[in-house]
């Protein structure tokens, strides 16, 4: 399927959903006084960029989100390479990692509020913690999938461990790492907004939602949530596009139809 056809089908799906929701509310199937119809939410969402409180919030949330994600990459990739290249260490740390990984990160936010004496650091640390795991685990597994023949060939030509890592292992692991980053990007956004919803803040998408909720403005709450969704979608789309372009060889080799 071409990109154009795919986008068209997606757009039809979204339009269909919105039309169904609008109809359900307009016909009284859902109560318009409790749930504002999509037309109202979309109008509010379109007006939000003109609201300085919202734009400050969006900028704040996005910077913590991407900052936290970048920090998670900077920590998880080297750690993953370390664990992936030293099987002994990986086996020794596996129980600890398997214990930490499934802990719902949102549940750690109250603890982070208590322990981290700075609002920005508190929020970034929960984002980093949550988005660490997919990148780390994908890096470790990616390194296991490296073609042993390629490694052996390089070794046979007298290349050292570092060279093998740089020339073979890392490049062939890169697609796995990027997939991990893509998964983490979504998780990081969830945490960025959740931390704001729980802890509050001077600005942020979550803070905007708290305000809207306390003021009984469900339309504004949903409009802000819509923007959060759009942000997540844009980030995912950008990473998918990057994956396709940069790792064309990987998709061809592993036979992933695109």
């Amino acid at each position: 399927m071409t990109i154009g056809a795919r986008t068209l089908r997606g757009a039809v799906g979204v339009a269909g959903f919105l039309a169904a929701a609008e109809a359900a509310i307009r016909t009284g199937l859902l109560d318009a006084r409790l749930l504002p119809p999509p037309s109202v939410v979309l109008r509010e969402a379109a007006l939000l960029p003109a609201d300085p409180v919202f734009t400050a919030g969006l900028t704040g949330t996005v910077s913590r989100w991407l900052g936290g994600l970048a920090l998670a990459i900077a920590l998880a990739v080297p750690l993953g390479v370390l664990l992936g290249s030293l099987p002994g260490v990986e086996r020794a740390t596996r129980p600890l990692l398997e214990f930490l990984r499934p802990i719902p990160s949102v549940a750690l936010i109250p603890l982070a509020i208590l322990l981290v004496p700075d609002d920005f650091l508190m929020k970034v640390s929960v984002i980093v913690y949550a988005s660490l795991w997919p990148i780390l685990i994908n890096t470790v597994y990616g390194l296991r999938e490296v073609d042993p023949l390629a490694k052996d060939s390089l070794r046979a030509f007298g290349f050292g461990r570092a060279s093998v890592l740089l020339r073979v292992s890392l490049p062939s692991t890169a697609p796995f790492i990027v997939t991990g980053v893509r998964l983490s990007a979504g998780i990081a956004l969830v945490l960025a907004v959740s931390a704001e919803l729980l802890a509050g803040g001077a600005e942020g998408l979550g803070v905007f939602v708290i305000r809207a909720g306390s003021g009984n403005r469900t339309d504004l709450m949903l409009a802000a949530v819509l923007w959060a969704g759009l942000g997540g979608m844009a980030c995912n789309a950008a990473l998918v596009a990057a994956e396709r372009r940069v790792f064309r060889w990987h998709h061809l080799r592993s036979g992933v139809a695109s």
Partner: protein
Amino acid sequence: MRRTSGALTFVLGVAVTLALAACGGGSTDSMKAAANNGLEKTKLKVGAIPIPDPAALYIANTKGFFKEEGLTIEPVTIQGGAVAVNSLKSEILDISQTNYVSTFSAVSKGEKLKLIADAYQAGPNTFVLMVPKNSPIQTPADLKGKTIAVNTFNNIGTLAVTATLKVAGLTKDDVTFKEFQFPQMAAALTTGQVDAAWMTEPFITVTQSDLGTRKLVDTMSGQTANFPIAGWMTTEEFAKNNPKTLAAFQRALARGQEIAAKDRKEVEAIVPTYTSIKKETAAVITLGTFPTTLNETRLQRVADLMAEYGILTGKLDVTTLLAPQPAATP
């Protein structure tokens, strides 16, 4: 290569920002202390809920009262007083709005907190039990065996409702409380998940006009008439280490509170600036009062009522919780 170095710069930038943020506090604060009438701290992060209660903070800030005292206030939007206690302990916040029931519960569990100033007191019809338009419930006595929505268990809601039930000859065991956030209560009422909901403004006004819900009873009457609702708190440690800063904060806030107490128009004008309550809604909602002094007799009433209805296990002496109050303005 260019792309890699860009990414590297970004990561470095984040790291540097974090490092700077981490060591920002100490030295600059102490340097400024000398310059600012001996204030121990001049920048304060103050938590406030986006509802009418903390209006005085925003009035005082907008009118520059804090500036005149040498203070810079960063208002931080919070969703409730419970999380705020932890934010105060970790110094994410310096001062926070709270409701008295939450603070007294926290203190009885060993938290070291001080009350700085009063913020908001219930007035007639500021906290009411609402029922759907055609509900068979006509008097509080009809609530026997029914389900009531409150925003938080063991807090002002359950306390005020229990006191109201007592007048009707019922106890809290005659009803079932269910937790709903205020924005979800209207839906809970209309879908029949609850039979009655304990609501505050702006939800009372909005659901009355949008859904035709009916006011069953004002829960702030009799034992709870003019009940103290919200105040400003900090940790015992912050109060001990920053007495001059706290006094300056109290003076500036008191000036804002005077305005809020006297002039409803000022409250109506400020509320839409820090909440999502529309101007037209702010003009019609029922407001409580903005007390200008922190009165221990009034607050003791809250602690005593909490003890009577089992929210506190023993008697709590609130005088020990009050931070020193500023001298009366001439």
